């Protein structure tokens, strides 16, 4: 048993810290002040590419290793993710790159699809984004109840429906859209489709105005009789299953989606911890600057922040470590997600109390963190959904 981070990873964390302090925090603050994501041609994104970001983890022909992708698995990505979220969680989503769909594409796409959709991200000539569209209006965490439909039409698929709260959708080269190809089969009828930007029928992009995390776009859009080639259906298994009568293969689309979410929960939890750690550091700095540290009430509050944050962090590290070991982590991933997100919210809330009326001015970093962190207890399964998942495992809570 060992909870220490090794020297090599510490060096990478330090590099991330330098980049975060110099580039990420100012960019996030700029977006927050403007109340809108940074525009596509913002110089930050070019610098991000020059810094080595925005590249795929796919080792295709001519690949250059992406920054932070030299191995180390979930644990490493969680540790680096926590550090970058410390500087600005919104910018971690806003950054160019394949982003959320990368895991599912790497796991399920055909080689031809990887070449076609990940290839441009091997050595991007300009900032490029991809996007993953799961959530629908009226269908947040109930992923089995999507209304977006896909129907076969010769050598094409026709997609119809609407998606909402989708990161980077309007600026993405392609969006991996989850749709149901056989509603009678429920969740096992679900498939994922590559929908390229500019495809007729893909439109109605509306960038939502959010309380926090303003640095990245959360976008709603519609699919109106959107015709895409048959080889844009993710993976071989889904296609063959579509021709068969269902069974084990046919649930692969849903399962691959859910396994992606499971694998990414430690990452979401880590970003909550990054925000909370920033709130703690700002709280300590404020308390010291205003000679509040010796007040027992203040000290107890800061002690609580520190202690809960450490417990949450270890919980998240454990869930990531289990994932890297190939061991089941459903309970731990959900536990880390719900605990970290709620603790982070508590810390930011109490940090606002520490500021007193200074917090009400709206120009302190803690005030931004307070707005930002709320989303982490909502995205990729609310705290309540995480408890349902844990309940199924721990007490056999029925579906």
């Amino acid at each position: 048993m060992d909870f220490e981070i090794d020297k090599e990873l510490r060096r990478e964390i330090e590099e991330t810290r330098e980049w975060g302090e110099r580039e990420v925090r100012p960019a996030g603050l700029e977006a927050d002040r403007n109340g809108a994501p940074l525009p596509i041609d913002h110089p930050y994104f070019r610098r991000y590419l020059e810094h080595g970001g925005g590249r795929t983890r796919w080792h295709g022909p001519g690949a250059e290793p992406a920054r932070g992708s030299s191995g180390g698995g979930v644990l490493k990505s969680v540790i680096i993710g926590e550090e970058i979220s410390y500087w600005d969680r919104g910018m971690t989503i806003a950054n160019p790159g394949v982003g959320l769909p990368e895991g599912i594409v790497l796991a399920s796409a055909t080689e031809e699809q990887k070449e076609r959709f990940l290839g441009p991200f091997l050595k991007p000539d300009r900032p490029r984004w991809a996007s993953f569209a799961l959530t629908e209006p009226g269908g947040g965490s109930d992923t089995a109840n999507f209304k977006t439909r896909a129907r076969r039409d010769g050598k094409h698929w026709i997609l119809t429906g609407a998606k909402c709260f989708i990161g980077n959708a309007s600026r993405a080269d392609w969006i991996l859209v989850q749709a149901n190809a056989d509603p009678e089969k429920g969740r096992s009828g679900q498939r994922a489709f590559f929908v390229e930007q500019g495809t007729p029928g893909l439109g109605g992009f509306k960038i939502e105005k959010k309380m926090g995390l303003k640095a990245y776009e959360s976008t709603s859009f519609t699919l109106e009789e959107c015709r895409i080639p048959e080889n844009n259906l993710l993976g071989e298994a889904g296609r063959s299953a579509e021709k068969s009568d269902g069974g084990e293969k046919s649930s692969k689309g849903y399962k691959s989606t859910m396994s992606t979410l499971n694998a990414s929960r430690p990452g979401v939890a880590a970003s909550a911890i990054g925000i909370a750690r920033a709130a703690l550091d700002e709280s300590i700095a404020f308390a010291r600057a205003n000679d509040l540290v010796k007040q027992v009430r203040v000290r107890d509050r800061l002690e609580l922040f520190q202690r809960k944050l450490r417990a949450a962090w270890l919980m998240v590290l454990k869930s990531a470590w289990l994932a890297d070991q190939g061991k089941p982590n459903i309970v731990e991933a959900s536990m880390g997600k719900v605990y970290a997100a709620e603790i982070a919210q508590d810390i930011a809330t109490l940090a606002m109390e520490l500021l007193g009326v200074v917090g009400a001015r709206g120009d302190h970093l803690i005030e931004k963190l307070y707005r930002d962190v709320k989303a982490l207890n909502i995205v990729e399964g609310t705290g309540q959904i995480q408890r349902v998942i844990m309940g199924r495992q721990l007490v056999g809570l029925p579906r």
Partner: protein
Amino acid sequence: MIDFSLNEDLELIVDTIRSFSNERVLPKIRTFESDRRVDGEVSREFAMAGFDRLELPESLGGSGLGMLARVLVNEEMGAVDPGAALALDRLGPAFYALEAFGGLNALAQFARPIVETEGKRAVLVLESDSTFDVEHGRVSGAVPWIPSGRADLVVILSDTGARVVEHGSSLQPLRGSGLRAAGSASLRLEHAPVIAQWQDPRKAAQALAKARLYAASLLLGVLRGASEFSRNYAMNREAFGRPIAHHQGLAFLIVDMYTAVESVRLLVHDAALKIDSGEDGTQHAAAAFVEAVEASRFIGPNGVQILGGHGFMQDYPVEKAMRESRALGLWMGGIDRARDDAGKFLE
């Protein structure tokens, strides 16, 4: 690099102590509680397996293991009966003060005779929990409660040092709120001769850190035991046509109790690893203790709540867990003093 697994030796220790606690202690927990002691046969088996000298150096006949081994053993014992755990580990946290201040010599002089003589007990008391006067090398005063029915060696730990007393103490048996299997008494010292004393605030802090972690790991076990028992009960007890655990109000409570136990476990292990690696673990140990005590306020009463009226009855162990978790939380200076130390990172 980060690794949450146990090595083979520690896994073996955990398996062994788990079997012992479930097979030898669990069937007798109410007997031990009413007798205010653990029977000699169980005590001898515990000693035979070497668990009564887990951290004693090998040169003194012990196993020479560290804090991580200690907290793993305490979790398993605490999950079944923390009072029995205290009765069986006859050196208890007194070991840490002797080790910190007196090293091998003090352990050979004071600790070894305790483990080598059946039935003897050493107790650690904190000066902050007591009223003591020291005059001409003799100490007088009283400690309102100790979880022990014997005190063959008394180690008094202050913020700056420690004193050892062997004679001149008397015990007044008490009913005790919890931990009754360990015995329960008030301790009085009357002109008791101090046979060893040391001054070193840093070592005092180290000894207290380990003692707190000792208490926190027993608490962890109690919380796990209560949490698991009530979870299993809720999966078997039916109301309104289904297991009560399948009513979301209870399911979420059980999930939150499980999470609270895990948060304590991680902080306890974190502090133990820090201490075993030679780092200053005082703040981490204090934080682990605070977390354990806070979790006990949540899990103790809710373990009873899940069982409803049955939980209030002594037919089930959850009422015992509620009492014992409270008693452990008051031990070793309690939560407020621990919070002082856990917050020292701000200084």
